[in-house]
């Protein structure tokens, strides 16, 4: 049929390809945010504290923000259900200076604690992460990504012990790790250094809960964590008379963080979230289905006599319907494959603007588009492939069933006229 009806087949395949490409990009964007991809393999056990809200009724003032190092150490790390707690912050505008005459560039530095490497499975190509002692002492040590090492030194080997200048402070390289993607919102960094290496982090927070650290907790029991965190908030409030602390049912699971993108002042609105996503999927499914359905209706009308002949010679409605659906499925799957390739090429080639648009910014900081690359395990995921295939089949059924059935219902003599 493809050879014999080139124009129809070509337009049909193109239409399907566009629909599948759009759906695949949508699916990949979601997959990246919720699936276990490098180095966030423990997403199913991770939960996050996004904001804490402290209210001072005396001053009629509520402030909200991330956590301080003291809060992490004195309250979050003490939660009984927390298997491992890590806090970190990302600075995307850090200036990297070179020894030679190269112009300084902006890089993304994640300041973290040693537990960071227990939760995020960074693969070290050389050396190791900074130690607990180095962290506690605020030593200027850093792990560097392989891409960054290549960029600065032209190699990933023999860079341990060398120094890099970050915001005019020299850091000694302790390890080289395989870089992830900026799409991994809570783990990305081209450099990973102890947060105590920052002078402002060494300063006493004055007992404030609010600070600059994003906190991730490894646990199998999020509900208990929520209760324990609320209790920790009450404990803090009791120790600071007049204050009230609200964690708003945190920590959020990794899926909640990824999908709901909780804003500063609102709780997650699951109803709106589902409504929006279902609406997007329906638009992606129904709009091309209507277009393709119209094309198939026209095509079926031109095949009316053929249908009449086939029925005359013993083709039953079910057999003919199945034949039409199979023919269409071949076209749809061809379109699906083209669509997948288009989606992959688009994401691979234009990951920067595309995925940044879909996935949003990283921790609210500005990261250059080139860091939003999709790694192979993000692109060639069986889940995405299955989603695209299911979408192909649905598209085929929705677009072909009604026009095909409508023609097949006609009396044979009318079809033969």
């Amino acid at each position: 049929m493809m050879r014999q009806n080139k124009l129809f087949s070509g337009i049909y395949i193109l239409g399907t390809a566009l629909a599948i490409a759009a759906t695949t990009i949508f699916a990949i964007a979601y997959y990246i945010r919720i699936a276990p991809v490098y180095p966030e393999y423990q997403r199913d056990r991770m939960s996050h504290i996004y904001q804490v809200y402290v209210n001072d009724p005396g001053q009629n003032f509520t402030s909200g923000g991330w956590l301080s190092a003291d809060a992490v150490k004195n309250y979050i790390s003490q939660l009984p259900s927390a298997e491992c707690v890590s806090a970190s912050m990302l600075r995307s505008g850090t200036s990297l200076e070179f020894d030679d005459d190269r112009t300084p560039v902006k890089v993304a530095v994640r300041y973290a604690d040693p537990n960071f490497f227990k939760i995020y499975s960074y693969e070290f190509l050389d050396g190791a992460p900074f130690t607990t002692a180095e962290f506690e002492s605020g030593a200027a040590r850093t792990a560097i990504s392989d891409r960054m090492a290549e960029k600065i030194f032209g190699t990933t080997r023999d860079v341990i012990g060398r120094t890099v200048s970050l915001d005019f402070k020299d850091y000694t390289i302790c390890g080289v790790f395989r870089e992830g993607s900026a799409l991994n919102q809570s783990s990305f960094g081209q450099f990973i250094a102890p947060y105590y290496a920052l002078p402002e982090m060494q300063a006493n927070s004055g007992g404030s809960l609010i600070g600059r650290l994003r906190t991730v907790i490894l646990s199998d029991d999020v509900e208990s964590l929520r209760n324990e965190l609320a209790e920790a908030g009450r404990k803090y409030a009791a120790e600071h008379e007049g204050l009230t602390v609200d964690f708003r049912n945190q920590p959020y699971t990794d899926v909640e963080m990824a999908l709901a993108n909780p804003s500063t002042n609102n709780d997650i609105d699951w109803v709106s979230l589902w409504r929006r996503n279902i609406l997007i999927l329906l638009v992606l499914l129904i709009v091309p289905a209507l277009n393709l359905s119209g094309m198939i209706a026209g095509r079926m009308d031109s095949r009316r006599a053929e249908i009449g002949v086939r029925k005359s010679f013993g083709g039953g409605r079910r057999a003919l319907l199945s034949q039409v659906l199979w023919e269409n499925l071949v076209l749809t799957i061809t379109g699906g494959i083209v669509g997948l390739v288009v989606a992959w090429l688009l994401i691979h080639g234009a990951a920067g603007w595309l995925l940044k648009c879909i996935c949003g910014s990283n921790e609210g900081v500005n990261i250059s588009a080139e860091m939003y690359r999709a790694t192979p395990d993000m692109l060639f995921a069986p889940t995405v492939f299955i989603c695209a295939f299911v979408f192909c089949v649905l598209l085929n059924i929705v677009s072909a069933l009604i026009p095909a059935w409508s023609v097949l219902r006609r009396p044979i003599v009318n079809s033969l006229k």
Partner: protein
Amino acid sequence: MSTIIKLSDISKIYRTKTIETQALDKVNLDIEEGEFLSVMGPSGCGKSTLLNIIGLLDKPTTGIVELCGRPTAGLKDKALARLRNETLGFVFQSFHLIPTLSVLDNVIVPLMYRAGSRNNKKLALEALEKVELSHRVNHMPSQLSGGQAQRVAIARAIVGNPSIVLADEPCGNLDSRMSGEIMDLLHSLNREDGRTIVMVTHNEDQARATDRIIHFFDGRRVE
């Protein structure tokens, strides 16, 4: 010989919102096995409607159709399709070859809907040999002359070895030489294979060459 087609009190009324047209009015007809019957009459007298009803392509408003001694009333779509596939072959005035299929694939069409059918290609080649078109198997319908197209249509009609062939003005779109070839072919199918043939025609010479002629006028059979 036994009766292979029996029509009893067949009437067919076409209704629209405003018009009611009686296409057939209480037609009774018995056709014997192996008979070559011609149906004649002016345009609009109900000949094609009669053929459609015999061929189970259309249902009568009232009356009973029996094929091979079996009443067809009340049969479901699947059973009707099977009966058409196994018992009937059709030859249409405008050939109705499927333009996107090759000659061979056109002839295979009836076999596609036969359960457990094997050797489809071999059977189709045999049928094409019978109509002397073995050398055109890979041609497309658009590459055939009218006579060749009708011979392909006849090959398609007989490939499933049906006992009845229904031909609706099979020479209506052909010149006299090609018409002669087609009529010879239909006669050989009747004489050599013993197939029952019911043919609608306007041509008296062609009709006279058949075993029996029946005439229709205004939906009624007239002697």
